[in-house]
């Protein structure tokens, strides 16, 4: 999809005008004080935008970005001082080293819950500061490194501030572009989805560990490069200035004030807070050191308590109307931006999809043999074996705590079985982990407690699912619209998932799993908590899914639903399978009546 097709449309020329303005900006002031200020806005904007890739998009809060900044600054500076290597090259050496370190830190630490990730990154940055102070032979410790001023292009040193300002601007525009491209790509959707709910993202085929790591690498690259820039600009670095915790906090502050997880938010944050910071330092720093940080701290606390959305969220409410008032807004944006109107249902019979159930079946689609899972000493699932045939709807019932959801978790890679064997399409997938790998073998699932990506729209939620098959955003969007049509959520496509009713959230959950085009779909209590009319509608959808040839395995407590839907039912009690048969047989089974259904059900 060509977003900026027509140069006379404000959507094109308005941002372009802003960029032109940014290029003119550094030449406007005469005083070096203001030139420096503008440069610092670009500098902090770049850093905050780099932080935002990890902290905003992926929701992994790093309080140790100063470490990567410092590694960049020290590497290029030492290479220049000791070997005369141009900082232009040293910059990339520093970035490379910072990336290696980031990978070493990221792999163990990304397993941590968010608070602990923040903790680990703080600790790491503190350690580097101490190492830089201690390793005098290399870094001259607390004395710091002084770079003799030798202005030349190759030595990355210039007379006057203008060249630095344009380098900083170049970096900032580059990171804006990178952020924009990420935000509108599959990778960006994946980052936001894992921030919103990691388990749900995994279940839709998102390799969350890899996505987090790639986001960190891109972020660290920019942070380290700006570190080199900083060293070349000030011509002096010491451990306390390039490895400081307040530095890391400042990046977060700019981003939060500007708008976390938005493309332009960190830049807006820098445009507002950097001048404020310079003024505060000017006014208050004269009275006493540290006073500006007191103001910063207060702003930070108030912002996260009362204005967590930042300025960008608020800006959006007048940006669109403004564009619509500008000349040219009535022009067409791009030629023919229409989604393929082929209904989703017709795709089910496309070649390549599973064979319809009435054909000759040689082997079952799915086979579980003697699955066992212990929690501590308790057997949650004990020696359970069953098969699911192609095109079948298999029901799974049993009292609460019988181990139903545990079976789902064992199949989909959220848990590893202690023993037993799982086969899907004749291939063993026992203990396949993490969950996204299971999704990519075409087993989909929903969660008992729905896990919508709250801060994404309904359409975007579904797109996370379609992205598992379609790489490009336009294709993923078109397919997602078909899914929305199918599950009856098309009207709500642009609402935030958090604003949906419980019934619509269940549909969304269903649609998202469906969007990955599974051959086997595991549904965990999709009608629980719905009223009879809503239940009817969901049952209709489930029937339609089945008619497309998708095999279903469903957990349900609502007997009317499970008895009418299922071809076959298995019953679990205390982790053991106590019965298997048609709904008819199950409802007469003595053990099932005793354990689960109760006497009234017969009557």
């Amino acid at each position: 999809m060509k977003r900026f097709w027509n140069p006379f449309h404000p959507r094109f020329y308005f941002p372009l005008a802003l960029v032109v303005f940014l290029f003119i900006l550094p030449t406007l002031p005469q005083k070096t004080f203001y030139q420096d200020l503008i440069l610092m806005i670009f500098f902090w904007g770049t850093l905050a935008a780099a932080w935002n890739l990890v902290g905003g998009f992926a929701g992994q809060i790093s309080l140790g970005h100063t470490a990567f900044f410092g590694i960049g600054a020290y590497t290029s500076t030492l290479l220049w001082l000791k070997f005369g290597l141009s900082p232009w090259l040293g910059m990339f050496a520093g970035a490379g080293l910072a990336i290696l370190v980031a990978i070493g830190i990221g792999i163990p630490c990304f397993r941590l819950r968010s608070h602990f990730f923040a903790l680990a990154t703080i600790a790491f940055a503190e350690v580097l500061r101490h190492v830089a102070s201690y390793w005098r032979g290399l870094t001259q410790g607390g004395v710091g490194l002084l770079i003799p001023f030798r202005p030349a292009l190759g030595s990355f040193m210039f007379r006057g501030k203008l060249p630095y300002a344009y380098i900083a601007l170049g970096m900032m525009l580059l990171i804006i572009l990178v952020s924009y491209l990420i935000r509108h790509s599959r990778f960006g959707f994946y980052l936001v989805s894992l921030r919103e709910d990691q388990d749900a993202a995994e279940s839709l085929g998102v390799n969350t560990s890899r996505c987090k790591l790639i986001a960190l690498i891109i972020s660290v690259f920019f942070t380290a490069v700006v570190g080199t820039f900083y060293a070349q600009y000030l011509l002096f670095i010491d451990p306390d200035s390039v490895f400081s915790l307040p530095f890391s906090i400042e990046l977060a502050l700019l981003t939060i004030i500007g708008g976390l997880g938005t493309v332009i938010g960190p830049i807006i944050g820098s445009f507002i807070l950097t001048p404020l910071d310079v003024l505060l330092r000017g006014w208050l720093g004269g009275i006493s050191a540290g006073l500006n940080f007191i103001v910063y701290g207060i702003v930070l606390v108030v912002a996260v308590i009362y204005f967590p959305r930042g300025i960008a969220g608020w800006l959006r409410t007048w940006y669109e109307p403004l564009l619509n008032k500008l000349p040219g807004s009535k022009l067409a944006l791009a030629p023919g931006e229409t989604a393929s109107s082929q209904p989703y249902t017709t795709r089910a019979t496309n070649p390549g999809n599973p064979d319809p159930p009435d054909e000759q079946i040689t082997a079952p689609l799915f086979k579980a043999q003697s699955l066992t899972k212990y929690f501590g000493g308790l057997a949650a699932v004990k020696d359970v074996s069953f098969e699911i045939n192609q095109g079948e709807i298999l029901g799974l019932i049993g009292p609460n705590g019988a181990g139903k959801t545990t079976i789902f978790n064992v199949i989909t890679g959220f848990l590893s079985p202690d023993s037993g064997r799982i086969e899907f399409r004749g291939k063993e997938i026992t203990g396949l982990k993490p969950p996204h790998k299971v999704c990519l073998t075409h087993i989909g699932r929903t969660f008992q407690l729905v896990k919508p990506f709250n801060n994404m729209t309904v359409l975007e939620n579904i797109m996370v699912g379609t992205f598992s098959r379609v790489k490009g955003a336009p294709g993923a969007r078109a397919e997602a619209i078909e899914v929305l049509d199918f599950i009856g959520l098309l009207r709500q496509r642009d609402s935030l998932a958090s604003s949906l009713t419980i019934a619509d959230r269940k549909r969304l959950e269903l649609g998202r799993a469906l969007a990955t085009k599974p051959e086997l779909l595991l549904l965990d209590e999709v009608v629980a908590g719905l009223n009879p009319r809503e239940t009817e509608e969901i049952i209709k959808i489930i029937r339609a899914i089945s008619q497309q040839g998708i095999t279903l395995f469903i957990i349900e407590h609502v007997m009317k639903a499970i008895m009418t839907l299922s071809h076959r039912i298995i019953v679990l009690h205390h982790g053991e399978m106590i019965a298997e048969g048609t709904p008819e047989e199950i409802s007469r089974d003595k053990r099932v009546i005793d354990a689960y259904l109760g006497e009234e059900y017969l009557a």
Partner: protein
Amino acid sequence: MIATLMQLIINGLLLGGIYALISIGLTLIFGVVEIINFAHGEFLMLSMYASFWLFQLYGVDPYLSLFMVIPAFFVIGWATQRIIIQPIIHAPPLNQIFATVGVSLVLQNAALFFWKADYRTVRTVYSTLSLKTGGLMISFPRLVAFVLALGIVAALLIFLKRTYTGKAIRALAQEKRAAMLMGIDIYRIYKVAFGIGIACVGAAGAILIPIYYAFPTVGGLFVLIAFVVVILGGYNSLVGALIGGLIIGVVEAFSGFFLSPHLKEAVYFVIFILILLLRPAGLFGRA
């Protein structure tokens, strides 16, 4: 050599007692309120200054100042929970992290503004007193610090075991919803837990000031240790924090002697990463 090792172990354990006291406050807050208090070190810094000024201005002995500092810091902790944490108790982790980070920034720089970056300590008659037994030197104020720290920890554990409020705190740390259903006023318990957690660092500050210096960034040194202790002890185990504190004290004594005192932070971090890799639930935590 044996004597040196014994001496190192004793030094480490004495230090570890204080680490345990600081870490238990952090663990309690994390276990109950489920946030990491990134301002924990700054509250410690504040209490060290409190004891310092009580001594400097009114001649109150640091150990005596415990009786003022503990209640005062309980109130401070209570108020922090009420004013800053309560509004974001259901917010995403990001907001919670930056709320306490912001508090830490404010406190640290307020200390810098009011009291400058000078290192301050109190000189009491017993500051340099030490006991000699069997070739071992035991610093008197360090011994007192150790005994007091363990005494306070023991009192806290008994409080949590015996009283209704204590039981409510433990219940909440285990299962929030069930605790709520049992009629526990969880918001009150949050405030109490935060108050107790901060009272613990308050006590630690008063105990520390005769043997250490107060300066605006002193909290950072101790809180890094406390974080490692909490990870080592297993996030929500108070006994784990106690033992973890002692272990880290001994590790510090040894790494200071055999490597370099300057590298102790690096040693902590290696421990930190190793635990995360090998035993993410900590030594005493539930997996």
